[in-house]
Structures are given as structure tokens and as C-alpha cells.
């Protein structure tokens, strides 16, 4: 929870990390979809989910 508290204190850093987790995996998702790499798709979607959960917990 130390990391979460640090992110809560630095709102900009927290939002930045959330934004990265929400967007960058999508590039990998396109590649994984083209390659039909289902396992990688779920891993990357998991990262997006993590970003959204972090957004929920930050405020």
C-alpha cells in the first residue's frame, strides 16, 4: 500500500501512471490480436484493468 499512498500524494504521478497503463498496452493488444496470441491479449488487458483499478483507488 506504500506505493498507492505515494501515488495518492503525488496526484500527477498517479494520473500519469494510470494513463500509461490505460494506453500503452493497447499497442501490444493490436499486435497480439493480429498474431492471435490469446494469452498475451489477456495479460495486456489485465494491465489496462490494473490501470483502471488504480484510477478508482487514487481518489
Amino acid at each position, binding site marked *: 500500500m506504500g506505493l498507492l499512498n505515494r501515488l495518492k500524494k503525488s496526484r500527477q504521478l498517479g494520473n*500519469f501512471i494510470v494513463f500509461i497503463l490505460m494506453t500503452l498496452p493497447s499497442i501490444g493488444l493490436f499486435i*497480439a490480436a493480429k498474431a492471435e496470441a490469446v494469452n498475451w491479449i489477456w495479460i495486456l488487458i489485465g494491465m489496462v484493468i490494473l490501470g483502471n483499478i488504480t484510477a478508482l483507488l487514487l481518489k
Partner: protein
Amino acid sequence: MAFFVALTPILLILILMVGFKWSASRAGAAGYLWVLWTAILFFGANATLLAYAHAKALLLSIDVLMIIWAAFLLYRVTDEAGAIKAIGESLPHLTNERGMQALIIGWVFATFLQGVGGFGVPVAVTAPMMVGLGFSPLAAVISASIGHAWGVTFGSMGSSFQALIATTNLSDYSLAPFSALFLGIAGLAGGFMVAFICSGWKSIRRLWLAIIIIGTVMGATHYLTAISRLWNMASFVAGIAGLVMIFPLARLFPGEKIDNGILRWKSLLIALSGYLVLVAVILLVQVYPPMKQLLGKIILSFDFPEISTSSGLLRNTPFITPAGSGRKISLFNHTGMVLFYTSVFAYLVYRWLGCYSPGSVQRIISGTLKSVLSPSVSITSMITMAVIMEIVGMTDILARGMAGSVGALFPIISPWIGALGAFITGSNTNSNVLFAGLQMQTALLLQLNKTIILAAQTAGGALASVLAPTKIIVGASTARMAGREGEIMRSLVPYIGFLILLISALTVVFLRVL
């Protein structure tokens, strides 16, 4: 059952933001997670579908966010140079006539600020100016809110209109005319409201012709700029046109002879220089063919295959999205890049004119980052949510349900859907992201002109965005009305409600006529 389940993400955002007072970024994240779960369980979303949905959403997000980031940057560049303050300080010196002052600051200048900044800036800047001139704080906040509302869609360098284009995949050429027309008419009505709020019927009897002249000039400029494919500066140019009209009109209504200070022309011209750079860059990049061609060479585009759902609890037959390219982004002549070039050149001009103090670059960058991150999170999650809803067929289910239940009343209800979206999410942009696709599909099912319905969507969203709790809080705090947000909202509702009814009427009339 399918209709209700498809509606739940939107209901969730409504409940979280209005009932639990969650921020847009938090509610957007919750909405995304809910849509993901319902799409997989009920509507047959599979891994490949979700992967392509996220990729499509990323392209749409980049398309919208480039404008928002650059618009914030440009605003910071000009604000740090003291340009906004200098322009605002010059205006009251033009006249002592109270109603005219209200129109100049609460309507015309607020429209200009919406054009170049938006994001709550018009009320935050003009409300305290009006309080300083002796208007009551309540009158200052509600007149500034109403005065700039019509400029929201094509304001902030067109970010809300960009979202409309991105989510409907229609051209700006087809969407701009009715959107600009509806908003221009609402803008004229807004001018009368501003005069009434600040100075009563007496002011309207005295200034009605001035209001019609200013409103017509601003509305016509707004319309012509929007349909000329320069929609990203339609509200900005309309504001400039209004400011230019103010000079001769203010002389006709000087008011009582009291010492109101002198107009510092040199400061005003220095302040406006950044905006002259904006006009020059936009004309060079978007109108001058050789430059447009040169900068348009690099396009970000991906081809998506046909996407199909699997079985779900509420889906027996696959919902198919045909193959096609996602949102194409012309990297170097995108509106966002144009604003970025403008920011750089404007910074150099203001620096050469000696407008900056030490540390300005750091303040500009940190101020921009502080402002853009939260909206970026909310826009990204809501766009992803909307794309998933579209690709699994949830939007189609909602559209069919609405077409079936509302039917002939849909044109009347259409702007209210946009208004609801803006009220819930706090912005015209997010409302367009959430509902434009749904509105377009419903219009197609009911065989209605989709550009008129989408104009109603964005106009309703623009007008109601001023009722968003975050904007009201900003206005209340700058006008020393903190804690009285409820009073502001109650005062605003009848005026905004009337303007949205006006849009409903325009929608019905134009659908019948055309």
C-alpha cells in the same frame, strides 16, 4: 433485459457522478470495468474482439487528446505572458453602460476565452472581472456561464467537435453546418439572457439592437468559419469578431460620464499578438495547399479485420463489425499539432516582446501537465468504454430500444440526451464520446437526418456542460460564492433548460423542412 443490461454502464456513471459525486476519471474507470465484465458475460466479447476494441479506442483517444493537450499548452503560454489578463483589463474601459459591460465581458469575451481555452476558463476569468465592476456574484457567474455555453462545441480549439467526428466517423464537412447553426441561434438567445440577468428588461429595451448585431456577427462568423473546415477556430474567430464589433457599438452606449480609466492600446495589441500567431499558423498549415500537402504525408492508420462476438448470456447470434481502417491521424497537420506549433511560435513572440518572467517555461509545462492528466484519464476510459459498447452491439441494442419506445419523440429528446451526457461527465467532449454513436444509430433506424440529430446532441451537450458540478464549483470559487453552488445551479437551470428546448424546436423544424 438486453436493453437494461446495455444501459447499465451509462446508469452507473450517472449514479457515481451525480449521486456519489465521483470525478469523471474515477467514474470513467468504473464504467470501463463494468462494460468489460458485461461485454464478456452477456454479449459474447472474446479476447480478439477486446484487443481490437482497445486498439481502436487508442486511436480515437489520441485523436481527441492531441487537441486537448495542445489547447492547454497554448492557453498556458498566453496566460503566462499576461495576455488574457491584459485583454480582460482593457474591455471595461470601453463603456460605462452596465448592460453593455455585461455583454462585452460575460458574453463576447467569455466566448473568445472558450474559443482559445475552455475547460472552465471563461467563467473563472470573467466572473471575478464582473464582480470587480460591481455586478452581484450570482449574476456574474450565471451570465458568464450562459454567455460562453454556445461556444463550447467549437471552442477549446474544437476538441468537442473533434470527438463528434471521431466517434461517428462522419466528415467535419457534413457535421459542421447544423451544429454551428443551432449553436449560433442559441448564442444569440444567450446574449439576451446575459443582458437580462445583469440589467433587467430595461437593458434589453435599450440594447436589443446591439445584441442582435453582435449576436449575428458572432453567429455568422462562427458558422462561416466552421463550414470552411476551420472549425477548430470557429468560437475563437467568433469571439474576435465580437470584440471587434464592440468598439464601435460601445461608443453608441457610453453610459454615465464617470472616469473609467483609459484603454491601453499597446498592452492590448501585445496581448493579442499570440492569437495573431494562431490565425497565421492555422491559415498556413490548413489552408495553404503546399504546406498542407507537405505536412499531410505521414498518417497513422491501422487496418482492422472483421470483428465478431461469440455467444453470451444475452446473445445467440454474432454481432459483426465490418473490416475497415480505424481512425486515421495525419500526424503533422492534425489540429493538435497546429496548436503545438502555435504555442511554440507564440511563446517566441511573447518572449521577444518581453512578456515573460524567469521560470516561465517550467511554469507553462508544469501547469499544462497538471491540467491535462486528469481529463486524459477520463477521456481514455470513456472512449474505450464507448468503443467496447459499440463493437459488442450494446449501442445497437440501446439505439433499437430507444427507436422503438420513443420513436417520433426522438428529435425532441435528442438534445436532452446530449445535455444529460455533459451534465454527468462534465464536458461536451465526453458527452459526444458517450452518446454520439448511439444518437447516430437511432437516427439511422428512425430514418432521420443524422447530421441534424448529431447537431442536437452536441448543442445540447455544449449548453448543459455549464451545469456540470465541476464547472459550477470553479465559477463559485472565483466569484467568492464557495458553498453556494446549489444556488448557482438552481439559477442556471431555467435558462439552460430554455436554450435546450430551443434546440429541440430547431431539431424538429429542420427535420420537417429538410
